[in-house]
C-alpha cells in the first residue's frame, strides 16, 4: 500500500463560513482521496419545525442560513401554498422575485470577493465587497433589514415595496452594471487568474448528473437546469432572462457562470420594477388554514435548488417538514473534483462550490505514515497564495489590475 498523508481541512477554517471537516488523502503533492464529514453544525431544524405554526416556520427556515436567507422562506411558503392550494396575489410574486434576485447578487458578490481573497487578490476582494454594501443598504431601505429580510409569508409577502421607492431601487441595481463589467473583465481576461483556475477541479456533465448536483455547479458543467425557468414560480414566468451555462466544469467556468448570472439578475429586477407600479395590491391573500395534504416548494437559491416538503394534517403545524439545501448535493461533488489535483489548488476547488454549511452543515494536514506533520488552515491558504506568487514570477505578469479611479 502506498504511503499516504491525510490533510484535515477544518472543522473550523477561514475558507468556510462554518464548521465542516474535509480530510484530504494526499500522495506527495497530489490529492488521491477525500473524506467529507458533516454534522458539526446540525441544529435539528426539521424536528423544531414540527413544533411551530406555519407562519413561525418561515421565520425558522429563514435562520437556516444567513447568506441565502430568503431562498429557504420562498421554497417553504411555496410548499405551504402548494399543500393548501393558497393563492398568491401578482404583486407579491413580483416582490418575491425582486428580493430573491437581490439576494443572488449579494451572495455572488460575497463569493467573488472571497475567491479573490483565497487566491491572494485582496484588492478585488475589497472592491467587490464595497459594491455589495450598496445592495445591503438597499435591502435595509426596502425591507428594514440588511440580512434576514422576513419578507415571505404563506399567501404573499409581509411588506409591500412602495411605488415611490422603486426609482431608488432601480438606480442602485442599474448602478451595479459598470463595476460588475469591470470585475468581469478583470476576472475573465486576466492570464494569471486563468492559469490558477482553468482546468482545475473539473467535473464532467455525467459527474454532475450522477451526483444530482444543482445550481452554478451543474450549469458550469453544461447541465442546463434552472428552477426559475424549468419550474416557473414567483414572477419568473413573467420576465425574460437567460440561463447561463458553460462546458468545462472547472473553477474558471464556475466563476464565469456566477458573474454572468449577476447581469441576468439585474435585468430581472429591472423588469419586475417596471411591472410593479402597474400591478396593484394587495400583497397578501391572508390564508386562514392549511388543509390536510402534502406540498413541495422549490426555489433556485444562489447556490442551486433548495427544496422544502411539507405535510399537513389539518392542524396549524406541519406534521413533517423536510429541507434539502443546494450545498447538500454540491459539496458531495468535491469527492470527484479534487481527485488528482494539487494541494495548493484544493482550497479554491472546495471553495468554488460556494459551500454553505449552515445549510448542509473542516481543513489541516496529518501524516498518516508518521502522524507527525501538521498543515493547518493558515498553511493551506499560504500554499494557495504562494502558488499565485510563483506563477506571477514564471509568467512575468503582475496579476489583475483594478483601475477603480472612475468609481472611487
Amino acid at each position, binding site marked *: 500500500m502506498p504511503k499516504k498523508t491525510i490533510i484535515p481541512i477544518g472543522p473550523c477554517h477561514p475558507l468556510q463560513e462554518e464548521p465542516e471537516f474535509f480530510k484530504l488523502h494526499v500522495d506527495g503533492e497530489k490529492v488521491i482521496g477525500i473524506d467529507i464529514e458533516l454534522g458539526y453544525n446540525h441544529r*435539528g431544524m426539521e*424536528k423544531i419545525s414540527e413544533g411551530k405554526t406555519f407562519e413561525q416556520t418561515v421565520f425558522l427556515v429563514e435562520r437556516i442560513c444567513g447568506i441565502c436567507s430568503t431562498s429557504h422562506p420562498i421554497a417553504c411558503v411555496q410548499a405551504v401554498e402548494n399543500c393548501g392550494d393558497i393563492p398568491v396575489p401578482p404583486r407579491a410574486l413580483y416582490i418575491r422575485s425582486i428580493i430573491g434576485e437581490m439576494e443572488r447578487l449579494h451572495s455572488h458578490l460575497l463569493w467573488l470577493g472571497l475567491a479573490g481573497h483565497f487566491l491572494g487578490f485582496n484588492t478585488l476582494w475589497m472592491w467587490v465587497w464595497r459594491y455589495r454594501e450598496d445592495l445591503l443598504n438597499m435591502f435595509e431601505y426596502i425591507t428594514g433589514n440588511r440580512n434576514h429580510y422576513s419578507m415571505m409569508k404563506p399567501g404573499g409577502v409581509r411588506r409591500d415595496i412602495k411605488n415611490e421607492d422603486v426609482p431608488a431601487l432601480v438606480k442602485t441595481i442599474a448602478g451595479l452594471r459598470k463595476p460588475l463589467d469591470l470585475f468581469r473583465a478583470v476576472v475573465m481576461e486576466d492570464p494569471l487568474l486563468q492559469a490558477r483556475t482553468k482546468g482545475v477541479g473539473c467535473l464532467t456533465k455525467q459527474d454532475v448528473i450522477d451526483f444530482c448536483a444543482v445550481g452554478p455547479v451543474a450549469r458550469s458543467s453544461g447541465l442546463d437546469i434552472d*428552477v426559475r425557468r*424549468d419550474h416557473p414560480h414567483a414572477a419568473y414566468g413573467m420576465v425574460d432572462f437567460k440561463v447561463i451555462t458553460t462546458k468545462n466544469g472547472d473553477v474558471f467556468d464556475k466563476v464565469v457562470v456566477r458573474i454572468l448570472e449577476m447581469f441576468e439578475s439585474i435585468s430581472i429586477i429591472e423588469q419586475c420594477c417596471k411591472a410593479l407600479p402597474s400591478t396593484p395590491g394587495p400583497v397578501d391573500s391572508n390564508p386562514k388554514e392549511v388543509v390536510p395534504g402534502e406540498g413541495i416548494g422549490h426555489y433556485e437559491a444562489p447556490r442551486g435548488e433548495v427544496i422544502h416538503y411539507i405535510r399537513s394534517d389539518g392542524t396549524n403545524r406541519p406534521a413533517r417538514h423536510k429541507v*434539502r439545501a443546494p450545498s447538500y448535493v454540491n459539496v458531495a461533488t468535491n469527492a470527484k473534483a479534487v481527485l488528482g489535483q494539487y494541494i495548493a489548488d484544493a482550497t479554491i476547488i472546495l471553495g468554488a462550490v460556494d459551500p454553505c454549511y449552515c445549510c448542509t452543515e473542516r481543513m489541516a494536514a496529518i501524516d498518516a505514515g508518521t502522524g507527525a506533520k501538521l498543515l493547518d488552515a493558515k498553511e493551506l491558504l499560504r500554499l494557495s497564495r504562494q502558488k499565485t506568487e510563483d506563477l506571477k514570477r514564471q509568467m512575468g505578469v503582475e496579476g489583475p489590475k483594478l483601475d477603480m479611479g472612475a468609481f472611487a
Partner: protein
Amino acid sequence: MRIPAQEQVLPVLREKLGGRLLDATVKSPVRIFLLVSAADIMEVSRVIFRDLEARLQTATATDAPDAFEILYHWAFDYIGCVVSVRVKLDKQKPEIDSIAPLCRGAEWIEREMWELMGIAFRGHPDLRHLLLMDDWPAGKFPLRRDFKGLNA
C-alpha cells in the same frame, strides 16, 4: 428517452412501470405522487433516473402512524414537473434496497435517513453517520415520534 410534454408524465410512467405502479395521485399537473412497493424501488428508480432522465432532488422519510414512508422526489427539469415516489415500510422492520449504487446523489440522504429515522438500506456502499456524532448510541433515532431524548 425524455417525456415529451407535461401532460404525458403519468401515461408514460404507467406504460414504463406497468404493474409496479400501485397508485397515482395528481395533486396538480406539476406535482404527482406515486405509490410503489418497497421491493420494486431499484427498478422503478432505474426507469425514472436512467430511462426518463430525471434528477433526484432528495428523499423524505416520515414516521407516519401506520408505516415508515419514504418519498423519493424526482424532478423532470425538461418539462417542469416533480414526481414523488412513495414506498411504505414495515414499522417493526424498516428495510429497503439502497439506490445509491444506481445514483450517487442518493448516498448522503440515505445515510441521513438511516441515522435519523432508523431505516436500514441494503447494499449501501458506505452506511456511516452523516450528521450525528460517531459515538451516537445504536438504536436511538431522533426523528422518530417515540424519541424523547437520549436520557429518556
